């Protein structure tokens, strides 16, 4: 689950990581007071969950109140669904560092990633061979110790005068990471201000979905999703991605669904949505098909090869769903696994053509979509 910058910064502040003075505004009428409370110049940062806001021109700087108001109006007017804007004091920046904490699945440790070169180019830097990027591994059971933080501090060449501030930031960030069950916490850029203060310039955070039950403080709202349908699917517990093509996928298992996606693209087709109708959801054909219908597809393609999921149960569910939802678009089925002969009969009886080969099903769906 993604956490907004302003939420991450609230957590930072609570845990002793310095952040710029800021306030959140949601409509023009709130601006005036904020621009009085916070001394200018300002930075206006739309609270959205997609990356590279800066490169997209969505971060505005303002020296005057007029410029700030104009900037905010521009952001609200972009049509990119911007609601909340974080108004921050502009920090006089001497240097930008990079700091994040994530999991190393191989080492089975948390890893602190630090670089003396923060900012938007960190990913290029990462791909170019990890030069100037420092990794410090932390055993989750042992936790962070001051020496871990010092190693990263000296490792990226910080001056002695900044070490203790930096160590405190790294330690606090680790504690946030650990206590939030995060998959990632990132401060990029981490400012060193003209006055020699270390300040979090940004805050990115992803909390593990499987751990949300231990975090009632994180409200799962529609705001956290790029698309309303994805939010709806999440609430229903169905893995779902909204795309913009013709064929709605309703397949069993992440691997098989991804494979069907590949085959569609290989064969010149396009995908309307990615949806996993399998695992614990194999009895929920109606809920799955409802989502597929909302994606405005030309064809619904059902491909399964059940493990726990019984083919006959899935086929029955699909038939029921069709009866109830009466989709206008054709439904292509390729349902296999335990009791697949029975499934075949069920589908035939309902007037569907039970295919047995995944590629054949894909080709059929593309043909139907191109009709």
């Amino acid at each position, binding site marked *: 689950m993604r956490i907004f910058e302003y939420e991450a910064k609230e957590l930072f502040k609570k845990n002793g990581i310095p952040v710029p003075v800021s306030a959140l505004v949601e409509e023009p009428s709130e601006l005036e007071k904020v621009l009085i409370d916070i001394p200018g110049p300002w930075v206006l940062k739309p609270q959205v969950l997609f990356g590279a806001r800066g490169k997209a021109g969505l971060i505005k700087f303002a020296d005057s109140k007029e410029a700030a108001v104009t900037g905010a109006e521009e952001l609200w007017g972009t049509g990119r669904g911007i609601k909340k804007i974080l108004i921050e004091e502009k920090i006089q920046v001497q240097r930008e560092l990079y700091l994040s904490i994530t999991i190393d*699945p191989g080492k089975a440790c948390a890893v602190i990633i630090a670089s003396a070169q923060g900012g938007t180019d960190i990913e290029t830097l990462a791909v170019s061979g990890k030069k100037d990027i420092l990794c410090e591994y932390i055993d989750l059971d042992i936790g962070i110790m001051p020496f871990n933080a010092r190693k990263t501090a000296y490792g990226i060449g910080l001056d002695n005068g900044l070490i203790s501030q930096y160590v405190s930031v790294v330690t606090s960030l680790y504690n946030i990471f650990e206590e939030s069950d995060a998959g990632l916490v990132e401060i990029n850029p981490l400012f060193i201000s003209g006055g020699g203060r270390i300040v979090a310039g940004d805050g990115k955070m992803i909390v593990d979905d499987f751990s949300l039950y231990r975090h009632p403080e994180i409200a799962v709202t529609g705001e956290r999703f790029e698309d309303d349908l994805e939010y709806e699917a999440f609430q229903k517990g169905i893995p779902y991605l909204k795309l913009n093509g013709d064929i709605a996928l309703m397949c069993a*298992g992440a*691997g*098989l669904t*991804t494979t069907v996606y*590949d085959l*569609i693209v290989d064969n010149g087709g396009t995908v309307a949505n990615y949806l996993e109708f399998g*695992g614990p959801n194999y009895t929920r054909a109606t809920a799955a098909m409802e989502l597929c219908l909302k994606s405005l597809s030309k064809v619904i393609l059902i491909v399964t090869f059940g*493990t726990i999921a019984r083919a006959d149960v899935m086929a029955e569910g699909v038939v029921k769903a069709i009866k109830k939802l009466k989709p206008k678009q054709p439904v292509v089925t390729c349902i296999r696994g335990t009791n697949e002969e029975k499934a075949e009969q069920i589908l035939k009886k309902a007037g569907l053509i039970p295919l047995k080969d995944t590629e054949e099903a894909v080709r059929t769906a593309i043909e139907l979509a191109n009709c």
Partner: protein
Amino acid sequence: MSIFIDKGTAVIIQGITGKEGRFWTSHMKDMGTRIVAGVTPGKGGQRVEGIDVFNTVSKACAETPVDASMLFVPPRFVRDAVFEAMDAGIKKIVTVAEGIPLHDAVRIRKAALDRGAMVIGGNTSGVISPGKAMMGFFPYWIERVYRPGNVGIITRSGSLTNEVTAMVVKAGFGVSTLIGVGGDTVPGTRFAELLPLYQNDRETRSVVIIGELGGTMEEEAAELLTAGKFSKPLVAFIAGRNAPQGKKMGHAGAIVTGGKGTASEKIKALRDAGALVAEKPVIVGELLKQALKIQNKRSQRNG
């Protein structure tokens, strides 16, 4: 003698009294798995499918020698159950649960590494040696998939594994041992840790890897090949070649950012290391034949 589990492996079932536990215990037994005890706190003294149930793993282990533990335990309790098994000295553990909290999964794998134990999963169907034994829930009755033979299979997926394995069987092969490492971000065991077992396994002549975008497990397998630590014929299928960047497609681990962990990268790494990579499931059988031919020629040259 197959990998991880065989007819003789003494298995306990943690969570045996639950609905899933009962159902699959019955199937595992039917298939031939040697289940020696069950564990559910508070249900000690009961019997399930003719198997004695104990309150704790250590009690079960005190009653009978145990080689492996199969967990049918909800994700929130997996960490506790895995540590209980390791605490009792069990070195082979399979957990099928989907939804294990990330930091729990990290702690589980770390503890297993530190103690020389092997945890398979979570979010997997488990381990099966067709015709012998299984730990997990495989529809072993589907003959066109779970046919005994000499192809080892390592996979991150469930349904896709059936799809691919069916192609392997269609081409005339059978399966020695199939291990699902699971689809989570931090599986207990990784591809590169399993390949050496297959290398040493007499019943495995070749291996098929079923991977997908995200993570680095396929790249690690390629490194192992390059280092000469796995020399049997290897065929791979990697899902997600066409996945849109930045989208979280596939399993939990399969998020691709900044060009890292793409299917294309994985395919290149495996090909560079000498593996044959199938563009689609249907040709996996064909590639297996090719790989075995190449191997035969090589051994004839060397022989």
